[in-house]
């Protein structure tokens, strides 16, 4: 059975690699940019590159915010990628304060510019980095990370990261400059990944496949 995924196309940005990766993982991909498309979706991917405020403005401009919130409140299956993860939170601090979808509590803040030994830290965080369990008791079974082990690396490009109020929302972290940085979040069937699964090789494709099967 072909699994359908509706990719939110709010920015008119380059969604080619997201599309190809989901297709490779066996999904039928369609782009949606209206509320009706969201309501009819089987599962939704919220991609995003660029800045928080402009990205949210684009979603608002297309009147996608309420339909997305309703879809999530109804227990729909959602994966936010990179900026798409950040949108899930209440406030983003990129170029001033902007409100997000607010379906998860917390803020999106700039990565620290010093490492834990107080040396300058390179921002953005670009490259492959290992996924880590945030706490010993965090289980990845039954989640998009079910078939990934801690230590597997994925590809990151970001300057901002989510800081959830509820630590139970943190599914995975990575370490950057000695700091723990949120790499994946979850609440029920709502997921967000800070990294780019579409650029993370076979590990990324495995995560996408698992999302499609949940």
């Amino acid at each position, binding site marked *: 059975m072909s699994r359908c995924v509706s990719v939110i196309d709010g920015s008119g940005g*380059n969604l*080619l*690699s997201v599309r*190809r*990766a989901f297709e*490779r993982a066996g999904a039928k991909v369609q782009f949606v940019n209206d509320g009706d498309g969201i309501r009819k979706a089987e599962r939704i991917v919220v991609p995003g*590159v660029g800045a928080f405020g402009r990205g949210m403005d684009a979603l608002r401009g297309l009147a996608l915010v309420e339909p997305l919130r309703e879809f999530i409140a109804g227990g729909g299956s959602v994966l936010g990628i990179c900026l798409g993860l950040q949108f899930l939170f209440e406030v983003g601090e990129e170029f001033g304060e902007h409100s997000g979808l607010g379906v998860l509590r917390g803020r999106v803040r700039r990565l620290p510019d010093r490492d834990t030994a107080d040396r*300058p830290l*390179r921002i*953005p*965080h*670009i*490259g*492959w*980095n*290992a996924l880590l369990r945030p706490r010993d008791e965090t289980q990845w079974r039954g989640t998009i990370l079910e078939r990934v082990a801690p*230590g*597997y*690396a994925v*590809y*990151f*490009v970001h300057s901002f990261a989510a800081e959830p109020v509820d630590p139970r929302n943190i599914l995975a972290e990575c*370490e*950057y*400059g000695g700091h723990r940085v949120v790499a994946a979040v979850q609440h029920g069937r709502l997921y967000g990944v800070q990294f780019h699964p*579409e*650029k*993370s*090789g*076979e590990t*990324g*494709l495995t995560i996408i496949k698992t999302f499609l099967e949940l």
Partner: protein
Amino acid sequence: MALLRLIARLDIKSPNLIKTIQYEGLRVMGAPHDFALKYYHAGADEIIYMDIVASLYGRNHLTELLQTTAAEIFIPITVGGGVRSVDDARALLRAGADKVAVNTAATKRPELIKEIAETFGSQCMVLSIEAKRRKEGGWEAFRDNGRERTGLDAVEWAGRAHELGAGEILLTSVDREGTRKGYDIELLAAVTSVVPIPVIAGGGMGTCAHIVEAVRQGGASAVAMADVIHYDRMSISQIRSEAAAAGLNVRKL
């Protein structure tokens, strides 16, 4: 911390993957996509496609190849050769590239670095420097694949490029290119000590010890390899295990 990246570099003279020694004596290897696919499955962290005659002819011929490759390869792809404007960069990014590498056009008009960085983000803008040792010391940046002098000091040029918004530097030693004698470690150290952005070591990879030097003494964040993998002297997975055994922090597969 971000892991050391092992990057497969493919120099292309359309439609073929080619290999040179010190950018001369071109030899045809085969279809670039087949090689790229092989490297992806062997665990390459990134792929670089470089159209090596693009600057001569004034355009990049890799758009079609890129579309084919991006449908089957799910790691970051950098494309260079003949990028002279924001529109050139956009066409490559649209075709599936994640970053563009610029050399010749930027040496003629450095503001191009700023324009690309401001339009698509610094993470998209890779400055490619082809550096050749000067008799009197230091290195000069060359363009058109080591064919033409620029008069620019390679180390100063790297610093300037960072200020203009380059997100990364692909630093190739023309003297070492294709020789398998190891990266030019002094060149690497000179550049990595002046720029805070990642530097990809290029030119001269022959053994895993060369990677260790490039990282430990040269300060490289990534290593590009061509000859050694194109001729199957070593596979990327073999290089990865040797690098890990030497204590380098590489991606676990």
